[in-house]
């Protein structure tokens, strides 16, 4: 039982932080109340001298790094309980003990990350207070009262986490199991609440509300909290956290799969990797829509900020994003294709893979074809300008929207075939059902291409982007309708169990790629979110007067994000190793 050692000595940090935060917020609240309603000063106007300088240390880089680490850890530890509760719930409904086992295992190996989230949060706070004291003073003068909520949520989350974790074995039966599930849901609610409070501070810096043009606070904290970006950011981060947790769990399972010595261990981790990646991809699909809402709110707050985001300097950033998301989709497809081998009928579907691959890859290529081509002068000469007769149309939005929908549609087709790999429908109208599905796909592909080509290039610009809505509607319709048909056809069908563990080792690297890409992408998008504020601490209210107020280039940001990703993943691996030590003693080592 020595392995519990490192865990035992960590809880004090868990208790100390909320207590300190509670004291600090009480003191702050007192300050704010004592100042009275007339006590709100406008945002301070700063000069370079107001920023403490420490030789050889870049304040922005330090804060950036600390913030990035904290956000990654926070996303991870918010995702783990969501993930665990979903699995536990499915396990209770399906009466399948595997789900419970996976949920508990994943929670157990991740438990150290909770302490590290608090530690990185503390480091971030310290860095901010040291390097940007005036900004923090200003924010505290507005958000002082919310720190109380933060501390309360923190307190509840910690309490719920320990009950949830340590009570898992003891509350495994009957009514206690339901109570345990309720504690898990409470844990998630308080965790999400915690994130919502923190999001209010972040979004206020981007789209301040509740303050006048000079930054003087009107006294209504709720107004400042419920600013333009708060709700979309809450949604976006919530969904992204689920996807992120799924991807990390998948990578964990992949790693254990690679090292599993017994057939049983391989089957278990194969199944865990599949379930986790399914959750990750499922949560990834609605993410673009949350992103659209976020972007729309940025535009409605400030056109200037919106244009900075989508055009000009950051246009290339979205090409990088396209490359990474394309890689994610390719990897997910590859994982599904490899999974054909798990079912008895899978071999028959392998011949379709290359056609799906052609469509997915072609969509991917269209998606990251830049609007502004990089040409050598001799090429520019031959083409006679920047606009390429064949590639030019591919750089425009309608082509990209079409490509994304095709990619989704054919990834879904991979999934359908994967399901068919272990299930043969026997209803009398199988042939007609297949014809119906094929017709649905054909009609959808035709409709999406028609919308993209016709409305994208042959009508005026108003329809150019509006056509993306019916395109997405078509894709969603196909997914729902196909699943319904599939479900009707599968009734009474012969189904073979998947042979879990019958996966090539190569496929596991796809899961690792998904996790690494997710981490990197989160860092990059975090950069752009922060960078579109440009030289403002609080956009349009409080200027950043420090020497590092300029916006860094994408290349620089990519290097910082890469360094952060390496450090973060190294720590995560260390945490898993720490958590895994116990298991090896318990289970006699299948890891």
């Amino acid at each position, binding site marked *: 039982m020595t392995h519990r050692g490192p865990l035992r000595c960590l809880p004090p940090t868990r208790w100390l932080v909320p207590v300190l935060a509670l004291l600090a917020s009480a003191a702050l609240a007192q300050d704010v109340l004592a100042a009275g309603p007339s006590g709100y000063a406008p945002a301070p106007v700063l000069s370079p001298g107001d920023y403490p300088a420490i030789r050889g240390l870049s304040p922005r880089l330090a804060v950036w790094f600390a913030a990035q680490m904290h956000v990654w850890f926070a996303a991870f530890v918010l995702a783990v309980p969501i993930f665990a509760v979903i699995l536990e719930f499915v396990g209770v409904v399906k009466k399948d003990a595997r789900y419970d086992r996976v949920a508990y295992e994943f929670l157990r190996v991740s438990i150290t990350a909770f302490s590290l989230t608090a530690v990185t949060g503390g480091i971030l706070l310290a860095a901010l207070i040291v390097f940007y004291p005036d900004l923090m003073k200003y924010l505290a003068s507005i958000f002082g009262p919310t720190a109380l909520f933060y501390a309360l949520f923190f307190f509840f989350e910690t309490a719920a986490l320990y009950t949830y974790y340590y009570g898992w074995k003891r509350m495994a039966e009957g009514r206690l199991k339901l109570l345990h599930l309720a504690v898990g849901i409470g844990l998630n609610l308080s965790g999400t609440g915690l994130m919502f409070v923190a999001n209010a501070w972040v979004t206020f810096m981007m789209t301040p509300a509740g303050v006048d043009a000079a930054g003087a606070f009107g006294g209504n904290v709720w107004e400042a909290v419920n600013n333009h970006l708060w709700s979309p950011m809450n949604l976006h981060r919530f969904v992204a956290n689920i996807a992120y947790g799924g991807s990390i769990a998948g990578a964990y399972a992949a790693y254990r799969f690679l090292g599993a010595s017994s057939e049983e261990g391989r089957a278990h981790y194969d199944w865990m990797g599949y379930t986790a990646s399914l959750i990750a991809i499922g949560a990834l699909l609605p993410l673009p829509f949350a992103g659209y809402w976020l972007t729309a709110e940025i535009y409605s707050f400030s056109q200037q900020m919106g*244009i900075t985001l989508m055009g000009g300097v950051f246009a290339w950033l979205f090409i990088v994003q396209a490359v990474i998301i394309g890689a994610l989709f390719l990897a997910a497809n590859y994982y599904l294709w490899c999974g054909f081998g798990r079912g008895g009928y899978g071999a028959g579907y392998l011949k379709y893979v290359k056609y799906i691959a052609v469509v997915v890859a072609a969509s991917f290529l269209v998606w990251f074809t830049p609007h502004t081509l990089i040409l050598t002068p001799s090429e520019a000469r031959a083409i006679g300008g920047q606009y390429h007769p064949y590639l030019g149309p591919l750089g425009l939005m309608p082509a990209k929207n079409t490509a994304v929908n095709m990619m989704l549609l054919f990834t879904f087709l991979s999934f359908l075939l994967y399901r068919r790999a272990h299930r043969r429908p026997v209803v009398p109208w199988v042939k007609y059902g297949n014809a119906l599905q094929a017709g649905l796909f054909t009609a959808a592909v035709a409709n999406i291409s028609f919308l993209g080509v016709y409305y994208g290039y042959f009508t005026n610009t108003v329809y150019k982007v509006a056509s993306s809505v019916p395109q997405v509607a078509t894709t969603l319709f196909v997914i729902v309708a196909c699943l319904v048909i599939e479900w009707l056809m599968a009734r009474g069908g012969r189904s073979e169990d998947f042979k879990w563990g019958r996966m090539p080792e190569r496929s596991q690297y796809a899961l690792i790629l998904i996790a690494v890409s997710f981490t990197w992408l989160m860092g990059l998008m975090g950069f752009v979110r922060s*960078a579109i504020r440009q030289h403002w601490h609080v956009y*349009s209210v409080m200027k950043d007067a420090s020497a590092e107020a300029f916006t860094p280039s994408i290349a620089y940001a990519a290097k910082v994000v890469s360094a952060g990703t390496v450090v973060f993943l190294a720590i995560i691996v260390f945490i898993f190793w720490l958590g895994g030590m116990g298991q090896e003693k318990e289970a006699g080592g299948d890891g």
Partner: protein
Amino acid sequence: MGRFVKTAAFSLFIIGLYTFYSVFVIPPINPGEPPSESAASGEPATIVELLALGEEVYNGKGACALCHTREGGRAPALEGSALVAKARLSSPGYSGKAVDAESYLYESLVDPSAYVVPGYGVSGTDGGVSPMPDVRASSIGLSETEIRAVIAYLQSVSGVEITVALPERRRE
């Protein structure tokens, strides 16, 4: 230990690829420096200086060119703004207090919602509210001189006579 080295190498390779792509493949574009506190170092003494300041503010500090482009369609093009200004005053949707073309332009800069060109209002307000900020607000923060210079610049690109008075003359 072999699988650890393998997966670590694989992960580093992926991160390396993304970094390589962002650093070397996409063109290096450096975002501009934050704008200086005030474009107007002193009061412009001549019309030429006033116009130069106006153009500088228009493309730089004022960030006008960000939205007022022909391709974007987010905001009306301004190259003929001073030409149409006079006609705007008598249009039915006009609710401001301007009396001539110059004061109309001034009003459009500091109170953009006084007249919203049809089709350019914030969606959902039925064209009643302009998405443009007051240029004196801190997100842009133009001084009185800079606003006058922008108006002069708009008049010059519209090809009409420049009616903006130089600061000295206004003081007299």
